[in-house]
């Protein structure tokens, strides 16, 4: 294979706020560079998972290599690395960025800069990427490209006057973007003769090839037969195949050299060995130091995951095992609940990650799940001087044994139009936020900075934010650390029986409110029984709220008309089906979704 000229390689990514058109632009670039014809393109080639397509977000990083014949007559290799677009996956984003030399910043011509635009741009600039803006959706009636250009210059401080004006959806201005990639993204550096140093920016598990490492070669070269070592995990293996990314397929090649983006397979069995951010080196000729920036990712959010049908416990275990093959950030360990039986306490990067895993378990593995309210990791300092990392509220020691507790706190940035500042500040206040400051981006928009306890934002903060700003506010956060806090465990009693799976930890000032709302919510969720059911919220045995599900008085079918009994039977079937999706706690049947109801307490 002919030596590839480094100066003809462009490694870049696209950064944008959600819905500003990142994936659509990626599709256009792939389409326009001739790798695929329009007919072959299923919309959004890069978002592979069914779930990603449905939700319109990128969950895992993806990469694709295309060839572009530029106006200067030369052919360039474009390696486009698509980055996950959600705050839950910030670390993955940072590693994908580190694999690039430049970034296209997509900004919506109507909406302008949003919180994630900023967060992502700063992340890109932090990695010394050459960032150039493009203004998308210029064909919208509400597009204001000039205002947005000025905004980009004022707020971010990068040149934007000659930013390509495009419509990714309608294929307008894509040529300009491709030319800009050639001109503005620097060619990669690195010396093929140095010892191997490759950055892992993603890895997936394939049942035939084993783990497939997605990497950017920073220095040196790698080929079939190279003994490689992952510097952080220490795993070693012999390379079976290297190659680059076609659209939706892997294309093997002889070797990967400094500056290139590609994949390595080496019959590695588990993605745990190839964690994102780790450095791959030649075991026989190692580099002196790993690449900077490696970090072990920690779960931020925990919840209990149980099979709806207790007999499916082994299936759930197998499914989690398989999912973990592909997702090193998923944690799980077995636990038992009095109410729900055998299940797992699972750790996630954030609520979106949780939802994705839950949906994949249900869809891909056909499992019916009951999940408990998600919580964060609390640090419990006991009187004996121990520190317990608490992921399951049921394991909270007796209050007499607790010296004090700590909870995780995040620094959050919320971008909002000025008219909603008041209501957003009020929301942050309600969520125990600590106001840090506010910056005006332009006359009508401001960036609010807050410190917020993580447990106040994992449930429904994002929804509340959207609803109180008519969808205009955007939000980004990062973990700041732990702080001491007055926390209590709120227990829920149904028909006088404590239901462990419904317990949660809450700040003592919000306990009454939460308890009351929880009881109200459960009252709506629990169907009437033949007897009256009290629902109580309690702290340490003291009842703080109560609701009652009245006894069922009437449940009769309507007229069975003209002998058409099919519809009536369907009604009965629905009723019976509903009953199946219930959990029997004592003599009370609780619908599965009730266990998640704590999530939706802020129904304003």
């Amino acid at each position, binding site marked *: 294979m002919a030596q590839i000229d480094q100066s003809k390689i462009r490694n870049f990514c696209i950064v944008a706020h959600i819905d500003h058109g990142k994936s659509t632009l990626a599709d256009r670039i792939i389409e326009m560079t001739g790798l695929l014809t329009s007919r072959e393109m299923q919309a959004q080639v890069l978002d592979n998972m069914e779930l990603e397509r449905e939700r319109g977000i990128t969950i895992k990083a993806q990469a694709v290599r295309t060839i572009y014949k530029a106006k200067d007559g030369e052919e360039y290799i474009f390696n486009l690395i698509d980055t996950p677009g959600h705050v839950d996956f910030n670390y993955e984003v940072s590693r994908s960025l580190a694999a690039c030399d430049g970034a296209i910043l997509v900004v919506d011509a109507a909406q302008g800069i949003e919180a994630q635009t900023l967060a992502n741009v700063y992340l890109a600039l932090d990695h010394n990427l050459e960032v150039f803006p493009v203004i998308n959706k210029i064909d919208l009636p509400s597009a204001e490209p000039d205002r947005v250009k000025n905004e980009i210059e004022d707020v971010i401080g990068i040149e934007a006057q000659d930013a390509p004006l495009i419509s990714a959806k309608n294929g307008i201005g894509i040529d300009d973007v491709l030319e800009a990639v050639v001109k503005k993204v620097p060619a990669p550096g690195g010396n093929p003769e140095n010892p191997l140093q490759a950055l892992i920016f993603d890895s997936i598990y394939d049942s035939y090839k084993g783990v497939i490492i997605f990497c950017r070669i920073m220095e040196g070269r790698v080929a079939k037969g190279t003994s490689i070592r992952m510097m952080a995990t220490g795993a070693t293996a012999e390379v079976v195949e290297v190659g680059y990314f076609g659209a939706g397929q892997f294309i093997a090649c002889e070797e990967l050299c400094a500056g290139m983006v590609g994949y390595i397979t080496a019959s590695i069995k588990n993605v745990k060995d190839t964690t994102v951010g780790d450095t791959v080196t030649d075991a026989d000729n190692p580099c002196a130091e790993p690449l900077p920036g490696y970090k072990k990712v920690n779960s931020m959010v925990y919840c209990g995951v149980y099979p709806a049908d207790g007999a499916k416990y082994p299936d759930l275990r197998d499914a989690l095992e398989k999912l973990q093959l592909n997702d090193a950030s998923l944690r799980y360990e077995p636990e038992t609940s009095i109410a729900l039986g055998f299940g797992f306490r699972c750790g996630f990067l954030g609520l979106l990650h949780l939802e994705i895993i839950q949906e994949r378990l249900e869809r891909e593995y056909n499992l019916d799940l009951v999940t408990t309210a998600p919580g964060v990791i609390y640090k419990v300092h006991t009187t004996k001087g121990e520190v317990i990392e608490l992921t399951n509220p049921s394991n909270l020691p007796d209050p007499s044994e607790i010296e004090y507790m700590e909870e995780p706190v995040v620094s959050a940035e919320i971008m909002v139009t000025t008219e909603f500042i008041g209501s957003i500040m009020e929301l942050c206040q309600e969520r125990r936020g600590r106001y840090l400051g506010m910056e005006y981006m332009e006359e009508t928009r401001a960036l609010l900075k807050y410190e917020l306890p993580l447990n106040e934002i994992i449930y429904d903060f994002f929804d509340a934010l959207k609803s109180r700003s008519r969808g205009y506010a955007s939000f980004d956060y990062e973990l700041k650390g732990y702080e001491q806090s007055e926390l209590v465990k709120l227990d829920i009693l149904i028909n006088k029986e404590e239901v462990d799976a419904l317990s949660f930890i809450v700040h003592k000032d919000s306990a009454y409110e939460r308890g009351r709302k929880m009881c109200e919510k459960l009252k709506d969720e629990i169907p009437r029984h*033949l007897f009256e059911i009290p629902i109580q919220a309690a702290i340490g045995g003291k009842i703080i709220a109560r609701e009652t599900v009245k006894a*069922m*008085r*009437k*449940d*009769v*079918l*309507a*007229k*069975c*008309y*003209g*002998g*058409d*009994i*099919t519809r009536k*039977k369907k*009604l*009965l*079937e629905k*009723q*019976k089906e509903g*009953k199946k999706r219930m959990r029997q706690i004592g003599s009370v049947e609780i619908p599965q979704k009730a266990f998640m109801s704590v999530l939706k307490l802020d129904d304003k």
Partner: protein
Amino acid sequence: MINKKAWDKMKKLSIYIHIPFCVRKCLYCDFLSAPADQEMMRRYVNALCREIIRKSSSYKEYIITTVFIGGGTPSILPGEWIEKIVRVVRENYQMETGCEISLEANPGTITSDKLEHWCRAGVNRLSIGLQSAKNNELEALGRIHSFEDFLCTYELIIKYRFNNINVDLMSAIPMQTLASWQETLKAVCSLNPLPVHISAYSLIVEENTPFYENPPKLPEEDEERNMYKITNDILSDLGYIQYEISNYAKSGYECRHNQVYWRRGNYLGFGLGAASMVENVRYSNIRKLGSYINLCESDLETMEKSSLNHLSKKEQMEEFMFLGLRMVKGVCEEEFYKVFGTAIEETYQGIVEDFCRKGLLKKEFCEETGEHRIMLTRYGIDVSNYVMAEFLLS
């Protein structure tokens, strides 16, 4: 004339005939019915008659025990058309002597002329949709008539010597109170002569009705339950016997046609969307008026293909239970065993016992007939859905 012995041997069949037209759709109605012009109705009746004739050849060994003309508002049709429909049935099927022929009629659409034709047709049972004796409640339901209209109609019907009359009432409707429901019942019970049959349904707001889109304020649950309770109190004092969840009749005047449904007898449904069950096969006609008429005019099959269901034994057992339990006398254990070759207790292990313990079902032995029966208790009737759902298998 068929002698009794031969009659006993013949297979029984009921006929339902659907008239999908009304003056105006009531706000709670989710039945297949809509206003239409005279020409459309004429074409429909002709199409209907062709369907009745077309199918008759398959039912030569059956004898018709009941005919029910329902809707919609069948009384909206000119009298001679009803006469024609019944005549077509008589000419093409074997009718049992004394066959029950019911017609649904609404106040405001009944005239002497129509009554004359119905008499001539041999209609021997009229079901009058009154719903309420309170004009404000009638209005809230979107009915086209007042209570006074009903009284005139009733008088007229009596003049034509109809004696097998049902009055339809509805509880738990907008504006209704316990007191007003009591007044409705009393008003019906002071009719002279008394109707021999009263249907008293509670309103269920069904999807795809105006009430579903814009829910009206309905009586509170406790009040509604009290309505249900006093219904039986008042009616039983006057000699009515509750024989089904929502039906009350003087002894011997129970609606034979409806009991065919609950006992899983054979019935053929003619007309738009009409449901049939013959020898454990269920199906319905298509629900599009234009297509129905076209198919009938070409003497083609009108069945909705997706509705065809050859009931499995399991489904038959389920139906036996949840339809049978609608009747106050419930289901017969010996009959279940005879039909399915297995005992109820065996098929529904523990369920009957559990419901008996909870006071929702009870068992009775009738020495006269030697039958063991399982039936809903009064409380069981209140929550009958809850009970019936458990009799679905798997």
